[in-house]
């Protein structure tokens, strides 16, 4: 596709046409335009003169004896001061932590006090909560019934144990201990000694139970 540019656009390219840095496309467009544009031909002639004069002018710069050592010293100095600034900032940071300003000290004290109070209240609340028992039958609170210590015979099955517990309305609240002892809670208040004793007697007649005793 052929690109159409105005005389003004193309005349703007002339300085870079003169120094040879236009793209190939721009270069070709300017060259084509120059064939027919007298004003641009004159301008290019002037720019060529400008180029040569500029070079002459540039050569007139005073010859100053520049020293690389001076520049190197300045570069090194900037590195040294940068490193020193880094060291200084780290030392300042440590100092700020070790010797905090009074406002920070007060703030830290208040935060610490709040934390101590919070932890104290939390710990007190935990102690006041009623302990719960975790047994095979789930997590339930004690009903306050009388308790028996029972040791089942070795070959007693789970079904037999369930039947025995159902017959007395009891439930396991602890066990088995390393010796195979279970703690059973009865739906009977501890004060009702007769009723409890009859349950104990009944259990002692059961062949699946090796040992049963009322807990004090």
């Amino acid at each position, binding site marked *: 596709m052929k690109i159409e540019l105005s005389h003004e656009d193309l005349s703007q390219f002339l300085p870079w046409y003169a*120094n*040879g*840095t*236009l793209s190939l496309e721009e270069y070709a467009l300017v060259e084509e335009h120059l064939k027919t544009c007298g*004003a641009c031909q004159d301008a290019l002639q002037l720019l060529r003169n400008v180029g040569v004069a500029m070079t002459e002018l540039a050569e007139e710069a005073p010859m100053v004896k520049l020293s690389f050592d001076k520049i190197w010293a300045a570069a090194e100095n900037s590195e040294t001061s940068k490193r020193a600034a880094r060291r200084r900032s780290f030392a300042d940071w440590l100092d700020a932590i070790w010797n905090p300003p009074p406002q920070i000290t007060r703030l830290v004290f208040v935060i610490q006090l709040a934390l101590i109070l919070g932890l104290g209240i939390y710990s007190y609340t935990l102690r006041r909560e009623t302990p719960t028992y975790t047994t095979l039958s789930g997590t339930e609170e004690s009903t306050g019934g009388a308790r028996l210590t029972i040791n089942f015979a070795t070959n007693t099955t789970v079904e037999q144990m369930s039947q025995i517990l159902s017959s007395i309305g009891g439930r396991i609240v602890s066990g088995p201990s390393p010796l195979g002892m279970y703690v059973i809670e009865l739906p009977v208040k501890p004060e009702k000694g007769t009723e409890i004793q009859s349950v104990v007697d009944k259990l002692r007649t059961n062949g699946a139970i090796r040992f049963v005793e009322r807990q004090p």
Partner: protein
Amino acid sequence: MLERKHTPAIEANPRSPCGLSVEGAQVNAGVDSELEWIWKIAQGDRSAFEQLYHAYQKRLFGYLYRLVGKSDVAEELMNDVMVGVWKGAGRFKGNSKVSTWIFGIAHFRAISSLRRTHPDEVEIEDAGPIADTHELQENALIRESTREEVRRALAKLNRQHRAVIELTFYQEFSYPEIATILGCPVNTVKTRMFYARKELRDLLAQGTLP
């Protein structure tokens, strides 16, 4: 917008109708060597830094001198620019040529210095309509100006106009590279060049030269 194919300005360019010889540019060992120097400088290599310094010393000092007009200030700025190169080499991404990057630093430092000492001379027009074809007709009147007249007119140019002329004709940068150096859009470069040419034509046409 036309697609730009970069032609390294620091290499001999057979397409240059101007046929200028850029001494400072020819000192360079090439774009690849310059990149290598920058990588080494980033590692703290003094020898690479010294090589880069010697390659740029003359053209950079001349550019700074012509911008600020005082050799002691130019020398101070030169040190400043080279320290900037030393400190900034690790951040050079290679998005532009090394020469464009260095001249960008130099231009920025020089303009900052001028802002402190000659604030009135720094702010120049950055945009404006460029459609005055009448001005171009004057070229016929001044094309026969002698080289000496042109040289003296250049010496009288506004500093920033002369900087665009120098970056184009002496340092042989393309207009996108000049935009990078000056830190402005390419259209601003074209506008500044337009006004630089206009000022030059006016100086030559008015015969105000001594």
